[in-house]
């Protein structure tokens, strides 16, 4: 492979705190050098970055890739197209597929499917319980050996305290993190929206926001008791964040992420029965949205993940209470996160950290940095360029975006996977 010199960019690497104008040299699929005045090696291609930001390829720690069993909604190949357009080069894939990723062979299959795309590393989560049924622990040790990056039942909460205790205890041996969907299942059952005035006006069955804090509080106590590591996915309420903040101060192995809808949208987005905005957990009152946005800055939230949940028309063109939950998120992950930067709430280096080094740290993987010698997974984006999110025109297969019609500032100009340009 020949060398490529990406010139005239703002190098941004939150892992090292680097933020300066310069250039970056790619050779043999790796970052050979970066900085200023590198000179152009013989035969190297050059790319003019036009002053845009060059950062590590984004690491998206919560993605449903559609395989196996949901190929009519999304495939690894179509998700890879959407990811590349969104600047994403690594995803952690949820295991609550059909069948669930509860066998080492399925972990290897998903990893291989990622490699086949040439543009996206797929790191499968292992099912925490067999079949993600929430009954018996899956083969955490064997799944970990096969390459499972962490363990979860996906969109299904571990409701049993005994099971969660066993999981946190057993997984310690394999240094495996447990990812929880923090929603007390008996309170959430049958709900379609956050309990409150809006749900009451719309006549929708509600899920009390406390369903989140209750499970978070329980699991923090279990993490303290077992010494295990728990990660709360898509945290969406102020009270859960307060508990997590306190647990971190205490030094427990507790981390969390959120997804763009929870700091960018509030429950009013479901007005007019917009089922694309029906998510799990449901969109919250604006006070909770503000608390989530604040927690991005203060470090309570470790990472931002797209929580990409591909749904097709048949899943969503239903009366609201019957419609499936979930929103497509790969293509809009960067743009919606940058909206916090443009709103003045978040420095750009922190925004990019939440999308690169921070999720890599949570997952314990080497991606998400511009280190010399690292794989050249890169994202070049113009933070000022405006584009409009239009359902139907999104890259990839899934079109169920909760941000339909939204104008976003910040567009991906190029994505590189191991030195090869896969977008732009």
């Amino acid at each position, binding site marked *: 492979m020949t060398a490529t010199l990406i010139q005239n960019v703002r190098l941004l690497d939150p892992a090292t705190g680097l933020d300066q104008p310069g250039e970056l040299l790619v050779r043999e699929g790796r970052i050979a050098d970066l900085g200023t005045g590198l000179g152009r090696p013989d035969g190297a291609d050059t790319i003019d970055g036009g002053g845009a930001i060059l950062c590590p390829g984004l690491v998206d720690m919560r993605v449903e890739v559609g395989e196996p069993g949901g190929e009519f909604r999304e495939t690894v190949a179509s998700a890879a197209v959407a990811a590349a357009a969104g600047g994403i080069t690594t995803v952690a894939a949820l295991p609550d597929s059909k069948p669930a990723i509860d066998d080492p062979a399925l972990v290897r299959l998903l990893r291989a499917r990622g490699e086949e795309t040439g543009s996206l590393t797929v790191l499968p989560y292992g099912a925490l319980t067999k079949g993600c049924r929430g*009954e*018996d*622990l899956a*083969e955490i*040790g*064997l799944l970990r050996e096969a390459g499972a990056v962490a363990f979860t039942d996906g969109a299904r909460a571990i409701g049993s305290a005994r*099971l969660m205790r066993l999981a946190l205890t*057993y997984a310690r*041996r394999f240094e495996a993190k447990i990812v929880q969907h923090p929603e007390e299942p008996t309170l959430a059952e049958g709900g379609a929206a956050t309990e409150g005035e809006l749900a009451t006006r719309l006549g929708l069955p509600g899920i009390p926001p406390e369903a989140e804090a209750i499970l978070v509080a329980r699991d923090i106590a279990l993490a303290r008791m*077992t010494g295990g590591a728990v990660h709360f996915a898509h945290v969406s309420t102020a009270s859960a964040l307060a508990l997590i903040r306190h647990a971190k101060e205490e030094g427990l192995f507790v981390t969390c992420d959120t997804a763009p809808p929870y700091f960018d949208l509030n429950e009013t987005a479901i007005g007019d029965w917009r089922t694309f905005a029906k998510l799990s957990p449901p969109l919250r009152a604006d006070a909770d949205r503000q608390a989530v946005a604040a927690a991005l800055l203060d470090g309570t939230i470790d990472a931002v993940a797209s929580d990409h949940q591909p749904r097709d028309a048949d899943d969503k063109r239903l009366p609201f209470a019957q419609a499936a939950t979930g929103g497509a998120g790969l293509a809009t992950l960067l743009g919606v996160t940058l909206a916090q930067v443009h709103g003045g709430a978040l420095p750009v280096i922190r925004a990019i950290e939440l999308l690169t080094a921070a999720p890599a740290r949570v997952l314990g993987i080497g991606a998400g940095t511009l280190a010399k010698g690292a794989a050249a997974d890169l994202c070049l984006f113009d933070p000022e360029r405006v584009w409009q999110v239009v359902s139907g025109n999104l890259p990839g297969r899934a079109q169920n975006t909760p941000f339909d019609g939204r104008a976003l500032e910040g567009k991906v100009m190029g994505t590189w996977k191991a030195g090869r340009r896969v977008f732009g």
Partner: protein
Amino acid sequence: MAPPQKHLLAIEGMYPPQIAAYLDLAESFVLLNRTGKTPRDRLRGRTLINMFFEDSTRTRVSFELAGKRLGADVINMSVATSSVNKGETLLDTAATLNAMNCDLLVIRHASSGAPALLAQKVEAAVINAGDGTHEHPTQALLDALTIRRRLGGLQGLTVAICGDVLHSRVARSNIFLLSAMGSRVRVVGPPTLIPPAAERLGVEVFHDMAAGLDGVDVVMMLRLQQERMTRGLVPSAREYFRFYGLDEAKLAHAAPHALVMHPGPMNRGVEIASTVADDPLRSVIREQVEMGVAVRMAVLDLLSTSGANQ
């Protein structure tokens, strides 16, 4: 000189000289057993009752044989045929036994502490043959005798007890006995099968077999009951064997002279590979059974002649 014991209920609390006395006497019975010249008049006229509230073959047979080789009258009561199933309480059973003038009572029970309760109420010397997840003292004694004969002593050895320590009475008795006799004890197993506060018993805890077996003189495997998997403490037999089953690769971390032990019955391919279990150079599993009879003879002998039972 340690005081004579009236019962053998637990290893915990025993003094090293008391333990050594059982082992020394058992040592002499080993030779007598091999030559077939056991003193059949030793317990003549004494009555030994085996009361097994839990199924057991090898321990019951071992006690029965021990009693008979010393000339005792041995009676086996199994739960299926006893009045316990008709609703009699443990203390009613004790009163019945007293009326029968039983001298030695061997009891196995699923509840921790049941032999101790019985010992308060019966006149016989009570021998705990395994109570719940508490203790199994004669197993620890026979394990100690096996090690002592093979390695010359117990002082300064490092012993790894591996597997389901949480539910194991064998593990508890061995931890107490080996620690008392100057061995260093490690417990090795998945975190779900190691009891909380295990360190407080004076053992080192490992969750990785390679680290736990590193340089040890003795590897004691424990039986993994199928029930542990149905209750979700271990995901599957194949995963258990991969990480905790003793095979040649894992055993290679132990000292070259290390002994392999198992209280039986074994689950081959779950906690132990046949190549290791049947290795004549490393495995002393069959020898443990032989030592079991000798140790139980010594226990019956010492308790019947103990000043505390005269």
